[in-house]
């Protein structure tokens, strides 16, 4: 793994924005819109005026809105593109986990800051949902780390040479993907931004603030997909093409599948989700982890 110069950091931003853009385009097309819909939406929001509310906690509100994109980018910082990485962190897996936990705070702040009931309810809904998905996510993340015997992303990729983790950790992979959709506040996990509360955390934001929130959600989905690729699909591992192309191809493939699949499921109400998360998904993920650790010990 080659750590590249920090001058490449803008490329990470470009790639994340491109992937988020792709997800938004795909989303628009399968919902009966046009490929240009995200461009039109971005133009619309850049032209739209921002809003501020009476006695709003503007500091937390704007932090929450803009922070999602930052969290997504910080996740991507530890994900190698082929053999190049910006940051070969020894605890890259934990780093990814820490960044996804930031989303807890950020979505809640986006809901709290507006001083509006619908937004407030949305923020709290997200925390309730986070209580359901976070532990399964952590254990799903632990499985590849156990398989590789390392928390370094590069080692996790190297350990998959010959046999991708997705083959013998399917439960961890599926749970991880569901959790990615959940921390991106998308699809069946979008209760925090649902129409039944006027858009929830989105209810009061307009203009560039809204653009950042929407982009941040897609960017999180993209970053999560990229991490699914390095944790379960062997990163840049693949024949014929250069490794960096493989990383991108796989990331866009996982991202597209997530965008397509999440439309097929209705919203999961957070109050019913928590029990499912704890009583079904958590033991299932632990069982997967047990299988992985037994395999690792026996091997």
């Amino acid at each position, binding site marked *: 793994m080659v750590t590249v110069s920090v001058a490449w950091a803008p490329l990470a931003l470009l790639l994340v924005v491109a992937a988020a853009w792709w997800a938004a385009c795909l989303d628009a097309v399968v919902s009966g819109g046009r490929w240009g819909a995200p461009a039109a939406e971005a133009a619309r929001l850049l032209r739209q005026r921002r809003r501020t509310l009476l*006695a709003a*906690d503007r*500091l*937390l509100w704007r932090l929450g809105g803009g922070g999602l994109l930052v969290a997504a980018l910080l996740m991507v910082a530890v994900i190698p593109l082929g053999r190049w990485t910006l940051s070969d*962190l*020894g*605890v890259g897996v*934990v*780093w990814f*986990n*820490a960044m996804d*936990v*930031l989303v*807890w*705070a950020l979505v*809640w*702040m986006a809901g*709290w800051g507006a*001083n509006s009931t619908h937004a407030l309810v949305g923020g*709290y809904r997200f*925390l309730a949902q*986070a209580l359901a998905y*976070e532990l399964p996510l952590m254990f799903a993340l632990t499985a590849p780390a156990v398989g590789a015997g390392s*928390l370094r992303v590069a080692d996790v990729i190297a350990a998959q040479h010959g046999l991708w983790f997705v083959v013998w950790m399917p439960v961890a992979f599926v749970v991880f993907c569901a959790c990615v959709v959940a921390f991106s506040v998308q699809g069946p996990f979008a209760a925090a931004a649902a129409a039944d509360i006027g858009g929830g955390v989105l209810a009061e934001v307009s203009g560039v603030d809204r653009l950042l929130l929407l982009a941040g959600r897609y960017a999180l989905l993209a970053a999560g997909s990229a991490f699914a690729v390095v944790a379960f699909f062997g990163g840049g591992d693949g024949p014929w093409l250069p490794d960096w192309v493989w990383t991108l191809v796989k990331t866009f493939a996982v991202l597209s599948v997530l965008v397509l699949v999440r439309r097929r499921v209705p919203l999961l*109400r957070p*109050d*019913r989700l*928590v*029990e*499912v998360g704890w*009583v*079904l998904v958590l033991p299932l993920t632990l069982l997967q982890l047990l299988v992985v650790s037994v395999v690792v010990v026996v091997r």
Partner: protein
Amino acid sequence: MTGVVQTVLFWGLGAVAVAAGVVVFRTDSMARATYALAASFVAVGAQVLFLHLDYVGVIVVLMMVMEMAVMAVYMVMFMGMNPALMPMSMVHSRKTSLGVAAGAFIVLAGGALLVPWPARRGAPAVDLTVSLGQATMGSKMLVMLVVSPVLFSTIVSALVLALPRSRYDRLGDDLRRRPAEDPQPGGVGR
């Protein structure tokens, strides 16, 4: 990265941690106070990274943000007044706490400056996360063995104290009512 930059960053993070700590007591919003505390912890976590303790540093950030996100909920909920729009004070028993804080600071700072620090013997392991794992699974196994029942009893005792409705409320005195009587049903079984 050169030593100077590291030093500046380290002290800068220290200043951020202290400043955020001060904000905790100066702000009028429970939400801001809680997240200022989170920011303070994040700065400290970043400082830990300078000590080459990558895992500890990152996990401090992870745990503290998560815990503060939960704590914000509690602070907002259980504050005896409006949690955002009223003047408030996070200071309680000012004199005692000032005294304790000053005393603790003097003892710790004095200790740091006056006690002769031992010279390093040997070198730390290359990967300290591995050492941490070996320690918890090997020589410090007792920690694991103790923590497990402690956490279990934490769950049980916390719920016994805090749960508004127990299984007898839901399932009746003979625990036979099916489905359970809940204000709003749903979930898994029971």
